[in-house]
C-alpha cells in the first residue's frame, strides 16, 4: 500500500505535515496507549504506520544527502575523520567515541577535539563537550566550524536560548513583518497603509 495513502497525505506535503499526520494517525490507532507493548492487532497497524513514515522520511532525507555542507572545512582531513563525521551524522555515537579514544593523546588534532566535543554533546555530556570545543578552538583558531560550535555553547551559557524561545513563538514577529511589507508595497504605489511608518 502507498505510504502516503497510509498516512493520509500527498507527496506534495511538507515534512511538518507528514509528522503531524503521523502523530494524528498514531493516536487514532493506539488511543494514546501508555505502555511498551500493544495488543497484536493494534501493533500490526502501528508497524504499518511506522514503515510508511520511516519510508517517506528516509527517502526525503536521501534526496538531501548531498546538500550537507561542511562550511569551513579547511585543510585535508584524512579519511578517518571523514568516516567519523558520517558515523556521527548516522547517530553511531558509541562507535565514534571508541574510535576517537583509540588515537593516542599526542596525535590529537583540532579536528579530533571538535568531533569529540560533538559526540559528547550528542551523548549529553555537556560539561565535557564545552571543554573539548574550547580545546578545538585553541588548537585551530581559524576554523569557523569549531568557533561556531563553541560560540553557540557560550551563547547558550549566557542565556541566549531564551531568545530562541521567543523567536520560536514568533506570531507577533510574523504579524509585524507582514504589516511592514504591506506598508512598503502600498507606499511604492503611491498610497500609504500605515502613515506613521
Amino acid at each position, binding site marked *: 500500500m502507498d505510504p502516503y495513502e497510509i498516512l493520509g497525505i500527498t507527496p506534495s506535503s511538507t515534512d*511538518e505535515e507528514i*509528522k*503531524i499526520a*503521523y*502523530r*494524528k494517525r*498514531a*493516536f487514532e490507532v*493506539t*488511543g*494514546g*496507549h*501508555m*505502555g*511498551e507493548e*500493544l495488543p497484536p492487532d493494534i501493533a500490526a497497524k*502501528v508497524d504499518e504506520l*511506522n514503515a510508511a*513514515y*520511516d519510508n517517506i*522520511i528516509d527517502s526525503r532525507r536521501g534526496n538531501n544527502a548531498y546538500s550537507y555542507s561542511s562550511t569551513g572545512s579547511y585543510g585535508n582531513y584524512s579519511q578517518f575523520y571523514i568516516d567519523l563525521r558520517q558515523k556521527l551524522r548516522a*547517530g553511531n555515537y558509541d562507535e565514534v567515541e571508541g574510535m576517537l579514544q583509540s588515537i593516542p593523546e599526542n596525535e590529537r588534532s583540532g579536528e579530533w577535539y571538535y568531533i569529540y566535543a560533538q559526540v559528547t*554533546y550528542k551523548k*549529553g*555530556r*555537556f*560539561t*565535557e563537550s*564545552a571543554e573539548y570545543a574550547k580545546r578545538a578552538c585553541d588548537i585551530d583558531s581559524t576554523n569557523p566550524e569549531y568557533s561556531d560550535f563553541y560560540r*553557540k*555553547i557560550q*551563547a*547558550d*551559557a*549566557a*542565556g*541566549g*536560548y*531564551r531568545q*530562541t*524561545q*521567543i523567536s*520560536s*513563538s514568533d506570531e507577533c514577529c510574523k504579524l509585524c513583518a507582514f504589516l511592514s511589507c504591506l506598508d512598503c508595497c502600498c507606499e511604492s504605489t503611491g498610497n500609504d497603509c500605515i502613515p506613521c511608518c
Partner: protein
Amino acid sequence: MYGKVRINVPEIKVREYDEYKGIYCSLCKILGKRYGVLARALLTYDLTYLALFLLGLNGSCVFRSGRCPFNFTKKCHYLDRKSPELEFCADVTVILAYHKLLDNIHDSGFWKRILYTLIRPYFALKYKKAKKLRPDICNDVSEYIIAQQNLESQKCSDLDEISKPTAELLGKLAAYGEFNTEIKLNRYRIGFCLGRWIYLKDAIDDIDEDIKSENYNPFVLKYKISDLSEKEKYLEEMNAQLNITAGAFIDALDEVTFLQFENIINFVNL
C-alpha cells in the same frame, strides 16, 4: 505545589494558561480518583509538565468546565477525553513521591522523621498499586535511586556523571509509549536534557543549605566551596552549566512535532 519546571506565564496566551491549568487540575483529579484524596497533595509542576508534553504530542484535547472540589468558588477546567497520558503521570507521581518519602525518612531530623514514618504505611499501599500497574517504571526508578546513591557516596564531582541518573530517568519517561524508533530517540533527548537541568537546578538552589548541613552537593565538591562568600565567585560558571543544558533542551524540542500546546511547552522558565 513543588517542582522546578515552571511555565513562563507572561509569554503565553491567556487561553494557553487556562489550558495549562486545565491539565494540572485534570492530573489532580485523576490522582484523587486513582489513589485517594490525600494523593492529590503529591501533585508537582514537574509531572504537570510531563503531562503537558505527552498530551501535546497526542493532541485531541478539549476541556470542559467544572469546580475545584477543595474550593467551590474556583472554576476549573477538566480534560474531556479518556487520558492514558494523565493516568501514566499519576502513577509516576505516586512512585516518585513514595521514594522521596523514603529518602526523607532517611535524611530528616527527629520530629520530621516521626511524621514521615507515620504516613509511610498509607503511601506504601498506594505505591503497591502503582507498582502493579507500572512494574517497569518502578524498576527504572529503583535503578535511578541506587545509581544516584552510589555516585553520591563516592563523592562524585563530575557534573555530567552525577546528573546522569536523573537525566536518563526523565529521558525514559518522556519517551515512554512511543512506537517510532527515531521519534523515541528525540523524545528521550528532550527528557534527558530536562532531567539534567532539574538535577543541576536543585543542586545550585541547595548549595547554601548543603554547606551548612554538610550534605552532598556536586557544585560544592567541584568548586571546593567552603562558605557562602566563595559561592558568589563561581555562581556565573555554575549557572553557565545550567544554561548550556537549557540550550540543548530548547534545541531538542525542535526535533519533535506537537499537535497541541506547543507554545506552552516551548515557554519553560529555564
